[in-house]
């Protein structure tokens, strides 16, 4: 006389897979039909959720989960119970501490059982205490081995500890981070980081080694997500080769940056890589020097993106980026803090970060920049592989423009705007975009750079790009 309704089956859009499905495919059909009448009855009836069990807990503290499943008790009828249980299940999965969550709804039993009482049981399987990963990566002129170690749910309340170590042919890097969400409000969380990163920037003949610690607080306000961050970095700059220009040589050495930064993001896009609708607004500001350190500056930058679906599945996308770096005090800004522009992820048709102020062929970056782009994304011609593989690809036509320069603060804002408006670099072209999961994309474009200034390095014709953030 028990009634069990398979929530996952009815609401979860994910296709079922795995050995369980294959083995018990017959079982699903037969009892389902049998129970239809009872289900019918229950749907119209008011029900009371009397108990919620969570089975399979090991290290996880129960008080964390009570926040996540509290809503289930408020359900008034069976459909509500099913929906709220499903939501609770999604919340539990988002914590990132369970491998599997199953929901079982049953009528209440026992002495105090109400006739319309229901018990909801979440059967969870926790992730292992520690998981490891191993990757090899090949970059430009460098191979590296990345070892990762993740400890989900270290202290039992969805805290996460991750360690990454990358051992390269030239450089080694590592990072240790600790993440703790507030129980019941997963979006409110704290992240602590310790890291060492080494980067080589051939366009500036520069090598940079950063060792730093940072503390980050994220929380949602209305529709935005806000992040406050303090970061202390010991930066070591050096010349990549003996032939580096003297301007880069002058920047060599050690410095300490201690900065407070704030970021605000509103993202209503349906996908971050190839969105079809929605917009993105990102504002980031960083104030360095007030909490100690050698570097003092104020850095502001923003990013706007708007997407609109047009006829025949094509999407029109427009983006605008801009930024300003103001030195505070006598010291000029460091080459490591300035903005760089150009390359397949920003203004296409130019070489990577190869425009604007330079000295003997080494690009020094600018203190102000803006860049804008308009894209028309369309499906592949004749749409091969539609509904599957082909949907990972798009063709696009683009028009990019932007400028990067240093500002002389004696001249006033009028002069600055004029400076950013003249000597405009722009480019146009077309190409193919490939979406890689939901994190990165590859582009193969034919570009025609225009408005090239002397000293800029261009990449006329076919250009390949890979990255996470695109103009």
């Amino acid at each position, binding site marked *: 006389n028990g009634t*069990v309704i398979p929530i996952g089956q009815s609401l*979860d859009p*994910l296709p079922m897979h795995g050995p369980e499905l294959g083995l018990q495919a017959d079982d699903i059909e037969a*009892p389902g039909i049998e129970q239809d009448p009872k289900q019918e009855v229950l749907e119209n009836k008011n029900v009371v959720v009397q108990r919620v069990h969570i089975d399979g807990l090991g290290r996880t503290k129960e008080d964390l989960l009570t926040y996540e499943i509290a809503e289930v008790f408020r359900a008034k009828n069976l459909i509500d119970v099913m929906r709220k249980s499903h939501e609770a299940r999604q919340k539990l999965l988002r914590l990132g501490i369970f491998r599997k969550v199953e929901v079982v709804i*049953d009528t209440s039993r026992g002495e105090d059982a109400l006739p319309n009482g229901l018990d909801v049981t979440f059967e969870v399987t926790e992730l292992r205490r520690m998981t490891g990963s191993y990757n090899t990566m090949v970059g430009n002129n460098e191979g590296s081995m990345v070892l990762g170690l993740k400890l989900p749910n270290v202290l039992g309340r969805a805290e996460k500890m991750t360690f990454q170590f990358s051992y390269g042919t030239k450089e080694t890097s590592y990072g240790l981070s600790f993440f703790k969400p507030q129980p019941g409000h997963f979006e409110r969380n704290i992240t602590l980081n310790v890291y060492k990163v080494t980067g080589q920037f051939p366009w500036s003949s520069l090598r940079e080694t950063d060792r730093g610690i940072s503390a980050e607080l994220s929380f949602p306000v209305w529709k935005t997500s806000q992040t406050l961050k303090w970061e202390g970095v010991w930066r070591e700059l050096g010349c990549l080769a003996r032939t580096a220009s003297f301007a880069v040589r002058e920047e060599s050495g050690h410095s300490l940056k201690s900065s407070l930064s704030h970021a605000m993001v509103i993202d209503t896009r349906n996908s971050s890589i190839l969105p079809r609708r929605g917009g993105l607004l990102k504002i980031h500001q960083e104030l360095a020097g007030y909490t100690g350190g050698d570097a003092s500056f104020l850095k502001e930058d923003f990013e706007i993106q708007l997407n609109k679906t047009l006829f025949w599945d094509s999407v029109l996308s427009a983006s605008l980026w801009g930024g300003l770096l103001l030195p505070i005090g006598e010291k000029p800004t460091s080459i490591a803090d300035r903005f760089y522009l150009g390359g397949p992820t920003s203004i296409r048709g130019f070489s990577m970060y190869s425009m604007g102020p330079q000295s003997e062929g080494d690009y020094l970056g600018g203190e102000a920049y803006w860049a804008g782009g308009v894209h028309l994304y369309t499906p592949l011609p004749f749409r091969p592989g539609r509904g599957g593989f082909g949907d990972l690809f798009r063709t696009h036509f683009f028009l990019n423009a932007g400028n990067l320069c240093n500002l002389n603060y004696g001249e006033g804002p009028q002069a600055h705007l004029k400076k950013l408006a003249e000597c405009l670099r722009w480019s146009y072209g077309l190409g193919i975009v490939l979406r890689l999961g939901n994190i990165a994309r590859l582009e193969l474009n034919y570009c025609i750079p225009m408005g090239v200034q002397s000293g800029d390095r261009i990449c006329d014709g076919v250009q390949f790009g890979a990255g996470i953030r695109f103009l």
Partner: protein
Amino acid sequence: MAAPAELFCWEGDWGLPSVSTDCLVVLAYAQFAGAPLKLRRTSSPWRSPSGCLPALRTEQRETLSRPADIIIHLRKQKYNADFDLSAKEGADSLAFISLMEEKLVPALIYAFWIEPKNYVDVTRRWYAEHMPFPLNFFMPGRMQRQQLEKLRLLRGDETLEAGDELEKELFRDAAECMNLLSQRLGSHKFFFGDSPSSLDAYVFGHLAPVLKSRLPNSKLQQHLKTLDNLSGFCCNILLLYFPRDGRDASSQKTAPQPDGGADFDHVPHKRRKQFLSALVALGAMLSYALLTGMVSIQHVQQGALEDEPAHLQPLGEHEDEGDG
């Protein structure tokens, strides 16, 4: 005086009384000064009282390791090869010894320890053959790392690696140093007058290994051979002060050819082969165990990594539970 002073040195080869520069310096000085030392040639540095070679255990049971300290000690014992030098000549000695330490030593470290072919074909092979098992597997590598570290510190470059540019730079300095020594020596028999002094010992110690070793990359040797007076100077000292080692070298060249020599070597080789085969078998077993272990570990890791989208169990199973 209690027990006589004992000097611990690396074994000799290539017709030299010792293969190490520092040992050669001390040996040559002791010969020049006529110091009666009980010589212990060894190829196990840990047998020496200080753990490194050369080492002098004095009559008072003190241990000295730096060549300069040993020479000062011998001088105090009235075995002074620099007795006849004027103050200016003493000053010149000091200057030329510094010159060699700054310009020649880095190139020697490079040629014997860092240059890959030289190290593998000659240096590592020599030490591996002369050290006792099983240390001969680890010690040459350790010594090489120490020498690389030393060269890095001397040059003030943390990331220094073997390479053409470095080689060229070091060998240029070394060649210039040899030229300067050659110019200073001129047509004299020794650097100061007719009897050898500490400077002669230093020059001999640094140049004799270059002259006598058979390195595949022998640019230093080629340069030294063009300086007739310097190479003559080294041979002369070998002939006058180490006549036995020089003869050893010439006899060694012919000795290995007859079969009798091989027979003599047979027993230690047999033992070594036994050791080796046991080691190989053990290594194979261990690596197999490790390999299979690794594979199973990787399986576990991969299992853990699969972030399977959780899904609900089919209906029937739960109903059974409910009914029961």
